[in-house]
């Protein structure tokens, strides 16, 4: 269903292609009219202040010269510009509120990493209160340890770095492949393995917890990382193993027991005791996060979606998985986003003059061009209503401290761990990956599915035929977009966008809303 506003106008730049000149960065920043340009300028000042406060510390300067991946952080303002391209009014404010807080949160993580890192800050007392936590882990098992820091060191090292700079992983992929790891492994765990082989991870923590939540590639990477952690750095590492068929009742006892084991492991190596009061405080926030996410999704199922695209996904990743209710700083940000979203919805605010298609984004995203979701809105009028990584837990977990709920809590933590972003869809059978997609299409009135086909991800490739067949039966436009997750040498950004361009021109017979951005010279860009 096409939604069109005849009186729609966008103050400032009309053709967004003027911002690109083929260089590493953009020609200039976007003119958004006086009000929104000044707002964007204010947020730029705020981001620069975060960066300035970070880099004035000697240990962080030392880290800048020690760790290769730190050079990617020169591009932080550039990353924010990618996510805000073409936006005005409430959508601009929503993206800034979410993404600026993600920037702040990552800066805090890096502060903690370098404070405890043996090579830079070397604060041993602090390091002994840190637990290295797998990037792909729900941090639920840390909810009852308020005096400990969960350090997700792969997040700034690899995950965020690739949002900042499309070439951030290539050196580490070469290192891993030079060591004999095949090139067709998922480049995310392969790059993480390369970082470990290259001795480029910060070293800290009393112990570490790794998970099996993503895939076999991740298990391969974890094995290499754990070997170095345990044998070279003497950091004991626990393997938290979530069941594959996570919707089955008969696996839940096992999953809960593994959470108990992880907690006991952390208690043993840190000397801290599990705190139920802290846990249930966090549980309340987890429920609040769930309610807010569902409210945003409900809004996105109307004609006037507000909080969409990569910022929706990345903010949810950070809040749901990395935070998991542990920080009291997230709820005020949630409320602020909600306020903007409600204003935008009431004002029937649109990000483009027309919404031609309502799309659900499924599969694993190309990390180095995840801002393509914003591009889709401006170039083709396709609204990304939600994505696979944001369709996670919808249950309310026990939040009152009672003897029964203390037992239930282990099952809730296990449930959250099993429903880590992505793996809750890529594991657990075809129902969670295929059948539920069509339910979401119906609930959100979607007529299109953008199907990321991560060429190194075996979990999704096996379902290709079922997606094709069932989308055809339902009359849903299924657009396959192939990529290699975080290696732009295999599929360039434009090669990825061209798959959608070709579909829109040849199958849909449509012309772009903004032809100036149909082809972008960003192959050399950060």
């Amino acid at each position, binding site marked *: 269903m096409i939604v069109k506003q005849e009186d729609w106008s966008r103050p400032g730049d009309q053709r967004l292609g003027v911002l690109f000149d083929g260089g590493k*960065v953009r020609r200039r*920043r976007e003119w958004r009219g006086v009000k929104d340009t000044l707002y964007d300028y204010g947020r730029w000042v705020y981001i620069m202040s975060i960066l300035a406060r970070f880099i004035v510390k000697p240990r962080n300067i030392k880290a800048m010269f020690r760790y290769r991946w730190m050079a990617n952080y020169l591009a932080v303002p550039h990353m924010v510009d990618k996510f805000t391209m073409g936006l005005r009014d409430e959508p601009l404010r929503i993206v800034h509120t979410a993404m600026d807080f993600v920037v702040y949160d990552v800066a805090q993580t890096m502060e903690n990493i370098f404070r405890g890192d043996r090579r830079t800050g070397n604060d041993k007392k602090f390091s002994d209160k840190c637990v290295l936590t797998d990037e792909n882990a729900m941090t639920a098992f840390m909810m009852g340890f308020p005096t400990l820091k969960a350090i997700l060191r792969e997040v700034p090292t690899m995950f965020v770095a690739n949002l900042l700079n499309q070439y951030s992983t290539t050196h580490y992929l070469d290192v891993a492949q030079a060591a004999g790891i095949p090139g067709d492994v998922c480049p995310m765990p392969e790059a993480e393995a390369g970082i470990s082989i*290259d001795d480029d991870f910060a070293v800290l923590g009393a112990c570490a917890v790794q998970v099996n939540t993503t895939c076999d590639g991740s298990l391969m990477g974890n094995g290499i990382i754990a070997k170095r952690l345990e044998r070279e750095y003497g950091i004991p590492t626990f393997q938290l193993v979530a069941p594959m068929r996570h919707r089955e009742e008969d696996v839940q006892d096992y999953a809960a027991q593994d959470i108990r084991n992880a907690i006991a492991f952390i208690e043993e190596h840190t000397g801290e005791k599990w705190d139920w009061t802290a846990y249930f405080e966090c549980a309340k926030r987890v429920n609040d996060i769930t309610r807010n996410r569902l409210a945003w999704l409900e809004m996105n199922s109307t004609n006037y979606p507000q909080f969409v695209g990569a910022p929706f996904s990345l903010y949810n990743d950070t809040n749901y998985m990395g935070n998991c209710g542990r920080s009291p700083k997230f709820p005020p940000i949630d409320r602020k986003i909600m306020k903007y979203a409600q204003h935008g919805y009431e004002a029937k605010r649109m990000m483009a003059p027309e919404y031609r298609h309502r799309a659900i984004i499924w599969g694993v995203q190309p990390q180095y061009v995840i801002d393509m979701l914003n591009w889709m809105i401006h170039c083709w009028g396709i609204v990304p209503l939600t994505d696979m990584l944001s369709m996670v837990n919808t249950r309310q977990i026990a939040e009152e401290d009672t003897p029964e709920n203390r037992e239930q809590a282990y099952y809730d933590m296990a449930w959250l761990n099993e429903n880590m972003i992505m793996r809750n869809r890529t594991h657990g059978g075809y129902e969670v990956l295929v059948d539920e997609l069509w339910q979401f299409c119906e609930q959100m009135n979607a007529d299109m599915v953008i199907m990321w086909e991560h060429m190194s991800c075996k979990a999704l490739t096996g379902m290709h035929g079922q997606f094709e067949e069932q989308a055809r039966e339902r009359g849903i436009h299924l657009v396959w977009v192939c990529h290699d997750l975080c290696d732009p040498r295999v599929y360039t950004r434009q090669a990825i966008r061209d798959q959608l361009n070709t579909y829109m021109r040849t199958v849909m017979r449509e012309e772009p809303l903004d032809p100036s951005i149909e082809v972008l010279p960003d192959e050399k860009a950060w």
Partner: protein
Amino acid sequence: MPKYIKIPLLILGIPAAVFAVTFAIYFLNLDMKLLSKIEPFFLRHYDKMPRESYV
């Protein structure tokens, strides 16, 4: 210049000048243009660093 003119001018002028300079940096993307020039120096530095690489 009398003080009663100079002080208000300074009070208004300094923030205005700071705004003008920072806004020019912001709008012309000079911050990113500068930092993108610095990146190759860092990469060369990392390439020269000895590493204890092993699987």
